Structure formats: structure tokens, C-alpha cells
């Protein structure tokens, strides 16, 4: 039997003979949240230099509040993308859940807890339907959620008859997520805290539970996961259901942020959520990425939008910048993934 007097650092074996560029790529590959962290720090510095109002505490607080809803959607999106899927319906699910919450809370005189519970059920039902289409009918996630995106959007409009429910018509609990309180001089909204809570729970679940490992394994290589004894369909279904729960949370945060529930808001948030995930270093091919990267990605999008608008540029330039960010992020991912073949 060989005793373990092996080479001191086995990593050295494949680290040495590489150029600095390859080494950088190796590091970025191993720590997917590193590149978005660098980009976020750089963009905060640049926008701070361009406009001194950018770094004002009130503006930073505004950015976090602007990020809360998309950030929460993106957390759900990350789960799906980690399994090599994509969810085009996240915005629609959130809108539908928020309309149900708002109608139940405003119309029936039911306790707000019940309204939230109904919203949660709607979120899980929508997620469950997506999961069913993907695991049982074997539809590609892109197609399945393109279909349900339209279905959910239409149902939300029909159900609400196209009408917005104002925050004042609902019990205070429904808009509680929009209330703010000071933390070291920065006004933080409850919605932001809830979003951070969701990230924390997901981060622990993904890195410290068997379920989390299985999510990565399924995204990595479905067949290998199956042969390792993982029930691939069960994992996928659980991922879509969990996403539904998070989307219901996003609905609540959205009601607080907008101080209203409107069937016409949030559809464009689909793409922003995917953007945040991709910029955050999660691979669209599945199996690679960390949830904190997505939070950074959402913050980057928020910082770009806010910084460019402070600079007085038209909103179209924000869209342009976000588009370029996505393309750069995906190209970077392609390049990073080339580590070792």
C-alpha cells in the first residue's frame, strides 16, 4: 500500500505550466462569482466618479429597492438555469400571484395572511405546471415556459379584468414589503431584506444539502446523475416548485415596491432576471454557478440603469448597456468553460 507522501499540492500539477491568462481563466472558472464581483466594484467606482450624486446614501438605497424585485425573480431563475433549463414565465407567474394576492386582500375582506397563502399556492401551481411539462411531457424548458408565459399573462389579465389594485385598497400587510427603515443611514426596505433572506436560504440549500448537490449534478449531466442514483425528474420538479415559492415572494415584494398590483407591470422583468443570472456567472449550460453571483448580477444591472440615468442618458442607452453586458457575460462564460477541454 502506498503511503501518502505524495506531491505537496496536487493542484500544482496542473497549475504550473500555464500562461497567466490561462491561470486567470482557471481562477474565474473555480470561483464563478468573482467576475461579477469585479465588474460590480468597477462599475460603482466609475459611476461614482462620473456623478457624485451616485454614491449618495439615498441613491444607493434607491438602487437596492429597484433591485429587490428583479433580484428575487433572478434567484428563482438561477435555480432553473442551474439545471440547464430556462424559465421565460417568471415575470408572468409573479404578476399572476400578485393579482391574486391583491384581489383576495382587497375584495373579500379575508385576512391578509390568507391572501399571501393564496398567492403562494398560485406560485407553486404555476411552478408545478412548468415542472410537469418539463419532466412528464419532456418539453424543452424554453418551449414549455414560453407557452406558460402567455397562458399566465392572459389569465392574470382576465382574472384582474386589466385593472390595477391600489396599495391603499389593501391591508397594510400587503404593502409592508415596501416600508423602509434606516440601517447606518441607508434606508433599507423590508422587501430587500426578504430578498436577501431568500438568497441566504438558497445559498445554504444549494451548497450544504444533498438536494443542492443534486441540482448541480442534474444540470451538469442528466445521465450521469441518473446513474449515480439521483431521481432526475424529482429534482427538476422540486426546482420548479421552489422557484414558484420564490416567485410568490417576489409578487409580495413587487406589491410593496409599487404600492399597487398591476397586471401590466413586470413582464419585461423576465429578461432582466435572465440577464442577472448570466452576468452573475451562472452558465446557461447548467451545473455551474453560485447564487450570490446572481445577486451581484442583479446589482450590476441596477447600478448600470441607475448610473446611466443619473448621467442623464436616455433609457434606451440603459437597454443598450444591459444588452452589451449580457453578450459580454455569455462570451466570457464560453471562454471560461474551455478550461481543460
Amino acid at each position, binding site marked *: *500500500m*502506498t*503511503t*501518502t*507522501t*505524495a*506531491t505537496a*499540492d*496536487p*493542484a500544482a*500539477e*496542473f497549475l504550473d505550466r500555464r500562461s497567466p491568462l490561462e491561470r486567470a481563466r*482557471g481562477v474565474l472558472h*473555480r470561483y464563478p462569482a468573482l467576475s461579477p464581483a469585479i465588474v460590480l466594484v468597477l462599475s460603482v467606482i466609475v459611476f461614482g466618479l462620473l456623478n457624485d450624486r451616485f454614491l449618495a446614501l439615498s441613491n444607493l438605497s434607491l438602487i437596492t429597492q429597484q433591485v429587490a424585485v428583479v433580484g428575487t425573480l433572478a434567484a428563482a431563475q438561477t435555480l432553473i438555469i442551474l439545471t440547464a433549463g430556462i424559465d421565460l414565465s417568471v415575470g408572468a407567474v409573479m404578476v399572476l400571484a400578485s393579482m391574486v394576492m391583491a384581489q383576495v386582500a382587497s375584495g373579500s375582506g379575508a385576512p391578509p395572511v390568507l391572501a399571501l397563502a393564496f398567492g403562494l399556492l398560485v406560485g407553486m401551481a404555476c411552478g408545478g405546471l412548468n415542472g410537469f411539462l418539463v419532466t412528464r411531457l419532456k418539453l424543452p424548458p424554453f418551449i414549455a415556459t414560453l407557452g406558460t408565459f402567455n397562458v399566465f399573462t392572459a389569465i392574470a389579465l382576465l382574472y384582474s379584468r386589466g385593472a390595477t389594485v391600489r396599495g391603499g385598497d389593501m391591508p397594510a400587510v400587503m404593502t409592508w414589503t415596501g416600508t423602509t427603515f434606516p440601517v447606518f443611514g441607508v434606508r433599507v426596505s423590508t422587501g430587500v431584506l426578504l430578498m436577501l433572506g431568500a438568497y441566504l436560504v438558497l445559498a*445554504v440549500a444549494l451548497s*450544504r*444539502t*444533498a*438536494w443542492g*448537490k*443534486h441540482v*448541480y*449534478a442534474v444540470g*451538469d*449531466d442528466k*445521465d*450521469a*446523475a*441518473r*446513474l*449515480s*442514483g*439521483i431521481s432526475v425528474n424529482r429534482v427538476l420538479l422540486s426546482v420548479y416548485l421552489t422557484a414558484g415559492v420564490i416567485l410568490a415572494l417576489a409578487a409580495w415584494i413587487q406589491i410593496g415596491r409599487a404600492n399597487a398590483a398591476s397586471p401590466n407591470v413586470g413582464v419585461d422583468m423576465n429578461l432582466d432576471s435572465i440577464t442577472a443570472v448570466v452576468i452573475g456567472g451562472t452558465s446557461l449550460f447548467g*451545473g*455551474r454557478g453560485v447564487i450570490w453571483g446572481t445577486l451581484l448580477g442583479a446589482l450590476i444591472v441596477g447600478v448600470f440603469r441607475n448610473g446611466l440615468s443619473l448621467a442623464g442618458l436616455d433609457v434606451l442607452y440603459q437597454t443598450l448597456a444591459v444588452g452589451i453586458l449580457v453578450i459580454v457575460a455569455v462570451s466570457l462564460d464560453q471562454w471560461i468553460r474551455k*478550461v*481543460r477541454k
Partner: protein
Amino acid sequence: MTTIDDTSTAGTPAVVPDATPVLQARGLVKTFGRVVGLDGVDLDLYPGEVLAIIGDNGAGKSTLVKCLTGAETPDQGEILLDGNKVHFKRPQDARAAGIETVYQTLAVSPSLDIASNLFLGREVRRPGFLGTVLRLTDRAGMRESARRELRELGISTLQDVTVPVENLSGGQRQAVAVARAAAFGSKVVVLDEPTAALGVRESGQVLELVRTLRDKGVPVIIISHNMPHVFEIADRIHVQRLGRCAATITPQSHTMTEAVAIMTGAAQA
């Protein structure tokens, strides 16, 4: 990198003919539409032996192994483990019964680290509230046992079990896959073409691993195209031909040329 000391040649354990086989297959039939994968195969695996399966492309080697390990269900025939009939519907079933497999299409998850791969599908939870209620895994404990397992198998090039498997060389990945199959007190280890994609030195390491396993008393089924490897490592050789077992020979009873002749149908056993 360890160097393999090749002094330990052919410590062939005597196969007790009347011992109960650990694993038996009787009359396995498996068809894929009109293609006959297996056409009534018998197989016996005795305690503490290395059984090689050889055969031409398409002879049914992989299908045979898949039936034994639950990745396919045979249309007919029966499988006995320690003399008891078993029905594997899924790989999990075979795994739960103690049959561990390294498939030809290496079933590892590249982005997960070595320890996570070793424990994939059978993660260990933390004791107490953290484990039972919060379902947190015992990461430190799993890493520690992964290290110990690799050490016991003599795989000293894989000391950092937190390295993602995608950063490893082909041979190291194969070692991870074999280690996963060999760990956790498995009853039978099955390897489908474990050296096919490997260089000379890496193949040597995998064969050394097979020997270590046998010396620990774990019987091994190994599929290989490589006659020198087969004759170096096997106690008995199951020759698969056209979906059937053409013969069962030993490295002592036949030469490589004779084995190939049986395999291709040029000679009878």
C-alpha cells in the same frame, strides 16, 4: 504521481469451484426492437475473483453489465445475488444491494468536487437538528472519509478532494469513478472499459486499483478490449459473442490468440 510497482504479478487466488457465486445470471435475454442485445447469457462471479468480459463490438458486453447493474431490465432470465433472486429496476436498486458500477460513459458530475462526486446520491447528513430537520450535509465528515477512502485505495494523486472533477486528467477522473464504486463496502464492483480512454501509465494505475480491490476481497467484473490487460488482471475470462457466452476460460488455460479466436468465432473453446 505514484509509480506502480509491477512486482506483484499474478497472485492468483484459487477459485473454489464449489463456492456459491456472489453474482449469477441465468439465461438473460435483452432485445432492442429487432436488435438482439443478449440472447440467453449465463454468468457466474465467485468471491474474491476478477472476472473479465471480452468480446467484439456489439457482442453485448455493455448490455450484459447494464442488466446486472439495473441500468437495463432484462426481458427474460434471472439474476441472483448471494443465491437470492433480485430484480433491479433502477441503478439505485443494484447500488443498494451492493453492486457498484463504473459505466463506460463515465458517470461523474464534472462541476462537483471529488468528495461530492464520491458521495453523490448518498450524502451523509449532520447529526442532530442540523441534519434531521435542516437536512444539512456533513461536508467536513464526507471530505475526511473521501480522503481516507482514496488513501486506502492507494490513489495518492488525489489528495485535495475539493478540486472539481473537471480539472482532473482522464486517468484521475477514472480513478474517482472507480473509487466511488469501490468505496462504502460494496459487494461487487463492475467496470465497463475502464482503460479504454487512458494512456499506458494511467491504465496501469487503474489495473493496480482493481488488484487492490480484489485483495480487499471484493470481486470485480471488468470489461476490456485490451487483451494484455485482461490476461494480466483476470482470474477467469467470460467470452461474449453474438449475445451469448461463447466460453469461460482462464489466462492459464488459453493464450491470447486462442481467446481472440473464440471471440471472433474462428475457434471453439
